[in-house]
């Protein structure tokens, strides 16, 4: 394997991995907001919640398109296996995202008859979050591949494990949403978010624990990776660090002097879990059979698009930072970007 044949797929895997990671964190908190919606009763609170993500949510979803599009172009063989294998959860996720996205906008237009769009926003967010968890679970538990093709049944993804991942991700997004509200809102909305965040933090931590135990139990390859020596010595700081971050997050939620500690701890918890999942599955793109290099498009194709990506990606990143910087600070009740 030449350097180019080795390096290009690696670069693309890192780029796509970053895009997916950014997507999970960024869209995570605004999907979480939708999940938390029914816990708030007043229109004023709903408006304040919406205003806190209004300038961002559309840009957040950009990363899903870049991640998905990148996967298609750089790793068509993986795309061709993963998408049919997870046909229903992926399609339902996309439709739910469309539905909640337009509900977000039409809610403002339809006022004062916006109740139906509130319902659409909540349901769309919940269904999208759950489907993403199912996709994650379906990928982790492995896809049946014969001759570089998906060879399983249409409901292979429907297992207790993937259902648990679905619920787990909903809790995780709800935590991101609640800690976002702690950071970006004030008054009643913030106060309530501090109460709501607590059970979701415990639930998320519980789910991360269950996945960490469940995956090595059902997949020997992962058990061997984590529990053989000397790997164990290198890897055990990861769960240890997670416990520290859990404590920091808990303090950030319960101590009213902290505004942003809870959110960034929750993000760190997500990042650590993501790193853990990546370690478990390296070098596979479609566990347990297709590696990053086996799934790669030819170097000519990867290089051609990489040139454009390297020019445009910094601009999109720069614009993202610019928007978040412009709208820093808390949104007060009754004011907003609308």
């Amino acid at each position: 394997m030449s350097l180019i044949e080795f390096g290009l797929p690696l670069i693309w895997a890192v780029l796509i991995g970053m895009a997916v990671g950014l997507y999970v964190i960024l869209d995570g908190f605004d999907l979480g907001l939708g999940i938390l919606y029914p816990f708030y009763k007043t229109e004023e609170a709903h408006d304040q919640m919406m205003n806190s993500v209004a300038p961002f949510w559309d840009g957040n979803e950009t990363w899903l398109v870049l991640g998905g599009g990148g996967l298609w172009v750089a790793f068509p063989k993986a795309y061709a296996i993963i998408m049919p294998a997870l046909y229903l959860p992926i399609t339902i996720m996309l439709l739910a995202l469309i539905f909640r996205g337009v509900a977000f906008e039409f809610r403002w237009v339809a006022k004062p008859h916006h109740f139906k769009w509130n319902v659409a926003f909540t349901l769309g967010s919940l269904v999208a979050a759950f489907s993403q968890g199912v996709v994650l679970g379906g990928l982790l538990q492995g896809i049946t591949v014969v001759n570089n093709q998906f060879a399983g049944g249409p409901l292979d993804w429907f297992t207790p494990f993937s259902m648990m991942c679905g619920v787990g991700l909903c809790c995780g997004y709800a935590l991101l949403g609640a800690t976002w509200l702690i950071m970006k809102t004030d008054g009643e909305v913030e106060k309530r978010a501090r109460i709501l965040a607590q059970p979701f933090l415990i639930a998320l931590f519980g789910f991360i624990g269950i996945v960490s135990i469940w995956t090595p139990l059902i997949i020997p390859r992962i058990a061997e990776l984590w529990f053989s020596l000397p790997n164990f010595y290198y890897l055990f700081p990861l769960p240890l660090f997670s416990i520290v971050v859990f404590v920091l997050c808990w303090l950030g939620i319960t101590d009213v002097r902290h505004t942003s500690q809870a959110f960034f701890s929750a993000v760190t918890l997500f990042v650590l879990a993501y790193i853990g999942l990546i370690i478990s599955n390296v070098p596979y793109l479609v566990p347990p059979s297709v590696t990053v290099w086996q799934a790669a498009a030819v170097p000519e194709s990867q290089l051609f698009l990489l040139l454009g990506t390297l020019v445009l990606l910094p601009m999109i990143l720069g614009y993202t930072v610019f928007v978040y910087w412009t709208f820093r600070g808390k949104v007060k009740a009754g004011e907003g970007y609308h």
Partner: protein
Amino acid sequence: MTFDPLLLSRIQFGFTISFHIIFPAFTIGLSAYIASLLVLWHWHKRDHYQTLARFWTKIFAVSFAMGVVSGIVLSYQFGTNWSKFSVVVGNVIGPVIGYEVLTAFFLEATFLGVMLFGWKRVPPWLHTLSAILVAFGTCMSGFWILSANSWMHTPAGHEVIDGIAYPKDWFAIVFNPSFPYRFMHMMSAAYLTTSVVVLAVGARYLLVNRFTEEGKTMVRMGLGMVILLAPLQIILGDLHGLNTSKYQPTKIAAMEAHWDGSKPGALVLFAIPDAKAEKNLYEIAIPKLGSFIITHDWNGLFPGLLDVPKEDRPPIANVFFAFRIMVGIGLFLIAVGFVGGLLWLSKKLFSQRTFLWVVGHSWPLGFIAILAGWMVTESGRQPWIAHGILRTTDAISPVDGLSVAISLTLFVLVYSVVFSTGILYICKMVKKGPQGAAIADKVDDEAALPSRPISAAQHSARESLEGGEVI
């Protein structure tokens, strides 16, 4: 009950892409129209140009958002429903579509924000420049996606090894033989379609005596473009047809319902092509005119449907009728341009109510022609998904029919709610006209610089829903 995943996937892709193309076609034209209005405003310093630019910008915002949202699911279907297509031609076509995605998102992230929200935030020249760059950017988006589509019709610059296409020459891939013709034909179609909408809206305002100055400007600009573009579009279509007859002769045979290639082709005005009996029923035709149009020679020969085996023929009725709808609308628009031009010369353009009524009701024609045109070219490519490389039947994912039936049902449900609401808002805004929130910058400028096109139209749309309609 069993479901055929192939048939349902084709219906699903056709359904989603037909919904999608309406919006980009409109935004390509509309962004150019808005940029022209802003340039005219700088030039003539007359305020109603800016009023119109503001009014159409809000409608543009809704349309752009609908286009982005409906486009996302298309690229995912390449994986979910057409995974063999992804594997076989992904190396070649993937990066080209990748560039389209990058272009669209780059646009959305930068100049679009300035165009939608920058009325007071940036100097006027920068705002106008942003509008011009958005118009250029929508063309670039069209450039890449039409290049990818054209490659599926006339593949070039690649080599096939073990059934998989690999890129050899990117320039030849991007500028494949049918691309320049398809690109010009489609861009011209987008501009013509939007011109007809602008003309129709202007005519409707004139009919009820509201916004007369704006209405006159819209009628003048819209009609001017129709006079120019409708005949040009027929010429571009003819050139595209000549190109098709060289590379995809069977498609031409289906368009003309031409069975026997050993005789000069007639121009079939009407017929019901019978694919089983391999002949036309109830045919009304002008002898030899078909040959003249396609070969530019009265006795020229061009291949007929009988020249290829049955399994290599496209669905003839789709192609045949869709082609006639498209050409019929094209000819009607030439007539609109001609009559309108005469009225304009005799200074009766703004008072001839019958003409205004007819063009006022013609707004959907461009969209119908675009959908019909795509039906011709895409159905006409069948049975191939990538001509000569991969058949549509071989491109399908290993999915079961029931899953696709479920997803198709959900697509139809969600699309009918989401897009009918969006289209309803556009219609209400047009009916309300350039007044109030539709042309104000105060409220929307408080709004920030979010990358959310539709928020630029919120106040306008809400007011349109609440307020009485003007027409």
